[in-house]
């Protein structure tokens, strides 16, 4: 538990969902809303506190929403407010969605509102919102969680077994929901399996299966099911799972990451397809590099923080030993990804400083020799980089060119390792440690490190 927590729930709850168009409105009414109405969800969340349910929708969809019996039932529990979004445009559907979310979050800080951000195409396990309430009352400023995506039609057919006798609510427990999701898993999720022979272009979450029980997941982009903004965020740009929480939460220890699906569980409903061109062949080392590339260009600091928190998604009792093994493995892989990211940042810095040969050698080690994990764990480091003339001279020497041949991976690793020191060392500190080595350019800053350009290759 964080020491910065100030116990006490929000003054008011605001549940927000954006749904427009027949497809999403119908799905919201037939799946999301029935699951939100299960006993451990909306009723448990708003008990004893003022609450409203804000639906952001288009005028054409209002009749379908207002005529639905579940909406009438919802309005008996809290205030239902529909907000017309016809006037909200945007540069594409994602930008429009961001603008709509901003509207849904307007005035939240002033009202000390706890925002529950729902999606219109998801099934929430019974008890999920009750768990959110507990975390909010402990003082957490955000609750992040996520769940697997499933292929719609067959999943929905199986889900009917959990519909209540009057067909109005869906009461599905977390384990039953996780088992259904495993049966109807979406191929996207399969491409995020660490052990898969392919990888998705946007690896924003990764899975490590625990056969017969479920999977460990580490997600960079998680759904902020609950946020409690302390300041208005009208200028927020980005997506709710990629930038919003960075804007809202200054101290990441105030973020509650759901670690176990028994506590909170959700499943997103989709169709089979997406561009299969987004799937590429990969292997263990290439996967680390590709994930690191994606993280370097897309993930926010909060996204990287999220990935340090493994979540158990399971449909049986967990065999603790097996899950710990999977979690340790996932931690090692994530360490490798984040260390590889450090190398990608180093590579960019080398290119910016005209150190093309050293940058090329680093890229060679990553691409051609699979040395993606040679750095170990990401931590503050000092990199000693040969100046362009020295690196170029070495490359053209026999010793240099030999080292780049097949079968010399260990020697190449040693060469690279010679150029790294733990911790941040200034140029002055380095001079005393490496007598005889001249520093051509010192103290080049790097995220989590420092770079010095030296006059030679350290063989």
């Amino acid at each position: 538990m964080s020491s910065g927590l100030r116990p006490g729930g929000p003054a008011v709850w605001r549940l927000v969902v954006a749904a427009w168009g027949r497809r999403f409105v119908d799905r919201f009414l037939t799946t999301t809303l029935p699951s939100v109405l299960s006993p451990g969800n909306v009723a448990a969340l708003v008990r004893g506190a003022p609450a409203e349910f804000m639906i952001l929708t288009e005028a054409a969809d209002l009749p379908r929403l207002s005529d639905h019996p579940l909406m009438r039932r919802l309005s008996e529990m809290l205030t239902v407010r529909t907000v017309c979004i016809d006037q909200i445009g945007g540069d594409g559907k994602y930008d429009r969605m961001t603008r709509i979310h901003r509207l849904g979050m307007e005035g939240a800080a002033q009202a000390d509102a706890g925002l529950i951000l729902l999606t219109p195409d998801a099934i929430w396990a019974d008890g999920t919102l009750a768990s959110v309430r507990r975390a909010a009352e402990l003082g957490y400023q955000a609750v992040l969680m996520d769940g697997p995506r499933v292929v719609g039609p067959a999943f929905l057919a199986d889900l009917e077994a959990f519909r209540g006798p009057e067909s109005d609510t869906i009461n599905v427990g977390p384990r039953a929901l996780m088992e259904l999701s495993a049966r109807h898993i979406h191929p996207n999720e399969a491409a995020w399996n660490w052990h898969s022979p392919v990888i998705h272009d946007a690896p924003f979450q990764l899975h490590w299966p625990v056969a017969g029980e479920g999977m460990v997941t580490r997600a960079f982009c998680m759904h902020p099911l609950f946020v409690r903004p302390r300041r208005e965020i009208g200028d927020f740009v980005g997506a709710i799972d990629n930038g919003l929480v960075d804007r809202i939460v200054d101290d990441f220890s105030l973020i509650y990451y759901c670690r176990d699906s028994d506590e909170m569980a959700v499943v997103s409903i989709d169709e089979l397809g997406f561009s299969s061109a987004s799937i590429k062949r990969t292997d263990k080392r290439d996967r680390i590099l590709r994930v690191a590339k994606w993280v370097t260009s897309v993930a926010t600091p909060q996204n990287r923080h999220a990935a340090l928190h493994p979540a158990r998604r399971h449909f049986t009792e967990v065999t603790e030993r097996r899950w710990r093994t999977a979690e340790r493995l996932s931690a090692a892989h994530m360490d490798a990804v984040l260390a590889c990211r450090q190398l990608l940042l180093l590579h960019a810095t080398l290119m910016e400083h005209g150190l093309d040969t050293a940058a090329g050698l680093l890229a060679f080690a990553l691409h051609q020799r699979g040395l993606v994990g040679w750095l170990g764990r990401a931590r503050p480091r000092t990199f000693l980089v040969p100046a362009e003339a020295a690196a170029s001279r070495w490359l053209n020497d026999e010793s240099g060119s030999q080292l780049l041949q097949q079968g010399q991976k260990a020697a190449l690793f040693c060469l690279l390792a010679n150029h790294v020191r733990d911790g941040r060392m200034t140029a002055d500190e380095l001079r005393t440690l490496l007598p005889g080595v001249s520093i051509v350019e010192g103290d080049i800053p790097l995220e989590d490190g420092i770079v010095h350009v030296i006059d030679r290759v350290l063989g």
Partner: protein
Amino acid sequence: VAFQAGRAAEARQALADHLARNEEDADAWLALGLMSVRSGNLGQGLSALRRVARLRPMAPEPYRELAAAYQIAGDQRAADCERSAEALERDQVIDLQAVISHMRRGATADAIAVGLEILQRHPSAIRVRYELALAHQAHNDYESVADNLRLIANELPASASVAKTLADFLWACHRLKHLAQSFSLAILGSAGGGNVLSPLHQVEDLYRAAIRHDPEWAEARTYFANVLRETDRLGEALEHYRAAAEYAPGDAIAHCNLASALAAAGEISAAIESAREATILRPDFGEAHELLARLAWLVKDAALALAHDSRALRCERFYTTQAFL
């Protein structure tokens, strides 16, 4: 104007210049096709008319004109074209405005609802079914796309566009379901529920049909070659990759795929040339840079290899392609 004044060569040149800048202008391709056929240049005419059919797969005119041109050439493809034209001419009586108006404003679920109502009255309404397939595609509902395209393909045997698109979707469904099945197996210990794999021979037959009716369609060649490589037929794949790069010299993906296949076949120098071409055409094509670097190492060209390894690493994100890598 030039053609009507009897200056056929001048007219064809003007159209060719225009089409070099406006490749998607179906009217211009149709004009070029008709002019070429009338002036006895059947090869150019057929090629242009096939392009019209690719751009407007639901219009009867290109099939009608293709049927006439194939008959002149004594080509058996005339019969398929005739049948396709007739099917689409019969279809013209069905009004699709209601579906199209929903599609234009992005209301795909409404378009599907209206389209299904029309299909109850006119089960063989080809263009309505085509709009339905597009709407299902917007929902990522690939199986419904494939179901609709399958029925259309039966009615339009000359449509390379329909055959290729159906093959693309069946292939995608196969890959995606296979992937999902393996993951279900890893978690549950048994395969998931709705993931029945479609037979691959259908995919192959459809790509062959598409290429038969539109042999110059580089994308069809590339995608078919990808299937062939996936099923360990590198030699035949290479033929199609070569044809694709020839028909679409400005397409980086075609060159990259060709490079990859050439490398697999041991033709390293040719592979380097193709990979280099791909990187020139798309400087942000990370996969092509990576491939070129790998090939450069094989021929011990350290400078080229280092430069392209670095370029590959700097490409912001992996460029999404149909590249077989």
